[in-house]
């Protein structure tokens, strides 16, 4: 008998259909991968199993957990199942824990709520659950608070909470999306171990085919609230039938075509740059200590080149970006753009600054929602002494929008009228409008769905060919960096540990850290044919 059997489930929220007649099964001791892009209904499917749905949700069909019909249970009965029979792990570990309670209290709560045991007993078992989630008591005592832990460690606490009572089913909704690659690999390994040890069923939800490919025994591919294809993952990867699944697979390994006209002349030269932060930590008037975020970093970007910069969170990527943009001064070394310093007299050198632009990760947070697109994308004009006005400005707006594949009429709209991918195109248009030489792409495609990401990467490749742009491409995603850059720098703890042609570095990493990164990066099975 299946552990979880979802049959012909449909769901509407306030009359809007979200799930349409979906079916899937999870067997004990097996992993079901649920894959889909944003809006595919994969998270709502998970919350349907928990029956933690938004107000106004109406379901029909059947969800059977060990033969028990979930949809017919009362709220009290459901509370008895959540946490005991089904555990759940969420995407964002930074906010998934109560900041005011110790991790011990939060894990013990799962036990106390379901079983009539003493507090001491619950604590002992909470310590055991944390140990199984690989947070040993000698380093991570129960008395720790969430803010004292890193993202990966917090995710382990959430996992410990979910498995404390050894549930039959664990649902993990994008459990590693917010984590670094090496942490992601460790968490996936932990989940796999728990499935094997406890004979638990795991429903692993992800937008990333590669993350699921390694782990899942069975796969379900969802789009717009429907299951488009499902089956054992080996067979499915080898023989995808549905055009959408094939498109998804193709997009996740997409390599844009670039002509690439790298010249020999260096456009940006970073030499021996040091960036330190002062942290006051020793008493009120005591000595200050320095934190070195970027340490002795040197590299060059040649004109027309696309250079990748990879590294995990906290490695100094963003600090380096700010220094290159002239937003902050450096404590040692120098940064020259076309021979001129980027930072002079306590502020960014305007002559140079107007030739560099940046595109950030978050297509939702990086626009003022009260401005029209025309005003948003002409913002860099403040860098020019004599910006175009009137008809000339209208022409420039139209050109920038059209070059990123949007319509010139879009300039009269507000940002909420656009999808994530379109917003990122607008961000690129904003960078293009003053015709810069260098564009820094700071995780610019990380928040996008794979198919949209493929389109944006194509656009970037096309633009660099047309306008002779130079890119500094910062990302934690090795496959994206591989697809669009010629050369790559690997950064760790403020230092560049390895650099070279992208293919060479990733195929034959020399530095220990690069080896780790490459090994941790999720990959599709090698024998998968991309049609």
């Amino acid at each position: 008998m299946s552990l979880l059997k979802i049959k012909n489930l449909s769901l509407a929220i306030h009359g809007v259909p979200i799930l349409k007649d979906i079916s899937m099964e999870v067997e004990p001791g097996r992993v079901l991968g649920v894959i889909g892009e944003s809006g595919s209904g994969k998270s709502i499917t998970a919350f349907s199993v928990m029956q933690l749905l938004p107000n106004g949700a109406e379901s029909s069909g059947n969800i059977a957990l060990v033969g028990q019909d979930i949809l017919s249970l009362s709220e009290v009965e459901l509370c008895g199942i959540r946490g005991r029979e089904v555990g759940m792990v969420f995407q964002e570990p930074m906010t998934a824990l109560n900041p005011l309670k110790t991790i011990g209290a939060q894990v013990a709560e799962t036990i106390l709520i379901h079983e009539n045991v003493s507090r001491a007993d619950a604590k002992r078992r909470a310590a055991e659950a944390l140990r199984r989630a690989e947070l040993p008591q000698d380093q991570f005592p129960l008395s720790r608070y969430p803010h004292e832990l890193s993202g990966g460690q917090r995710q382990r606490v959430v996992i410990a909470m979910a498995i404390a009572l050894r549930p039959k089913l664990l649902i993990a909704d994008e459990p590693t999306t917010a984590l670094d690659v090496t942490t992601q690999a460790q968490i996936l390994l932990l989940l796999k171990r728990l499935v094997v040890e406890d004979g638990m069923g795991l429903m692993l939800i992800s937008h990333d085919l590669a993350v699921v490919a390694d782990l899942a025994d069975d796969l379900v591919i969802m789009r717009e609230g429907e299951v488009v294809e499902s089956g054992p993952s080996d067979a499915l990867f080898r023989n995808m039938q549905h055009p959408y699944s094939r498109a998804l697979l193709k997009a996740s390994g997409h390599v844009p075509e670039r002509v690439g006209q790298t010249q020999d002349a260096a456009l940006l030269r970073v030499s021996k740059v040091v960036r330190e932060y002062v942290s006051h930590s020793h008493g009120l008037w005591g000595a200050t200590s320095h934190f070195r975020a970027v340490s002795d970093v040197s590299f060059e970007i040649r004109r027309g080149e696309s250079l990748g910069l990879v590294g995990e969170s906290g490695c100094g990527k963003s600090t380096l970006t700010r220094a290159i943009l002239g937003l902050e001064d450096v404590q040692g070394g120098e940064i020259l753009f076309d021979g001129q310093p980027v930072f002079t007299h306590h502020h960014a050198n305007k002559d140079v600054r107007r030739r560099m632009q940046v595109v950030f990760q978050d297509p939702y947070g990086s626009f003022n929602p009260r401005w029209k697109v025309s005003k948003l994308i002409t913002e860099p004009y403040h860098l020019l002494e004599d910006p175009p006005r009137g008809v000339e400005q209208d022409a420039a707006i139209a050109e920038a929008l059209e070059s990123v594949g949007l319509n010139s009429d879009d300039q009269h709209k507000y940002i909420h009228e656009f999808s994530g991918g379109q917003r990122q195109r607008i961000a690129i248009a904003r960078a293009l409008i003053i015709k810069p030489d260098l564009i820094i792409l700071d995780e610019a495609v990380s928040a996008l769905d794979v198919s949209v990401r493929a389109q944006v990467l194509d656009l970037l490749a096309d633009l660099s060919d047309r306008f002779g742009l130079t890119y500094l491409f910062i990302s934690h995603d090795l496959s994206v960096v591989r697809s669009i850059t010629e050369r790559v720098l690997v950064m760790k703890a403020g230092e560049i540990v390895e650099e070279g042609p992208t293919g060479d570095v990733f195929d034959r990493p020399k530095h220990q850290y690069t080896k780790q990164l490459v090994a941790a990066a999720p990959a599709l099975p090698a024998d998968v044919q991309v049609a």
Partner: protein
Amino acid sequence: MLRYFFKRLLSLALSLLAASVVIFLALEVVPGDPAAYMLGLNAQEDTLNALREQLGLNGTILERYLSWAGGLLTGDFGISYTYRTPVADMIGDRLWVSLPLALYALTLSTLIAFPAGIWAASRRGSYVDAGVMGVTQLGVAIPNFWFAMLMVLVFAINLRWFSAGGFAGWDEGFWASIKSLTLPAIALALPQASILTRVMRSSLLDTLGEDFIRTARAKGLSKGQAMWRHALRNALIPVLTIMGLQFSFLLAGAIIIENVFYLPGLGRLVFQAISARDLIVVESVVMLLVFAVIMVNFSVDLAYALVDPRLRGRR
């Protein structure tokens, strides 16, 4: 935690110092000579001089500031220009009315706001929620002196449950005093409770939308358990801020209500002192209120640290 405490304490001392300078200088530039005011229009120049000397009005600005601030520190607030009695005694008497009144009003407002805010938040979008929001809207809009007069009409004049004004004095017994403070405290608490209810409700609703509430629900907690165990303490932080501000306001801002009920409180004292140009009383009361505000903020900061472990580790 200890470092957090000392840092707050240092900032408290600096705020007091800055406030004393500002208050002193502000009253320096106000026109009018207290000595001339006290002795009337026909006073002789040498009599005036003698009085100025006695009041400490001669000497350089720095000398006068130091003697005033030094006096404050030792509890010597000077002598009132109009009543010729020590300011410290006058303030002390009035404080015995104003402080209990402020505490009474704050207690009432908290006792109303917490349950009402929690009730409204836990039934978001229901008639209960709409009702609570409507009543609090009204509570904020109604001027409290008008509400006070209404209560006097109903409870003092018609029903004769309370007296219409005046203060029994603590010598008359605890309950008699509390009784005479009840109507003013209700009048003061009405707008405060309304604001606090709305803050409590919206803060709690924000917290209930947080990811960790979903985590708690996934563990098997019911909606109510998740709210009481996880949301409430997190929602308290903005509520504490507002309560701190309200207490300071109640201590200083009861002038109108004290006048409506003829209460011998600090508000009325300051009001009378300003009309009589009794600068030393004004200075002292204002300084005392500043001290109270800063102390309240200090306590609120400490309360934050008790609620939030993230602050305890901070330096």
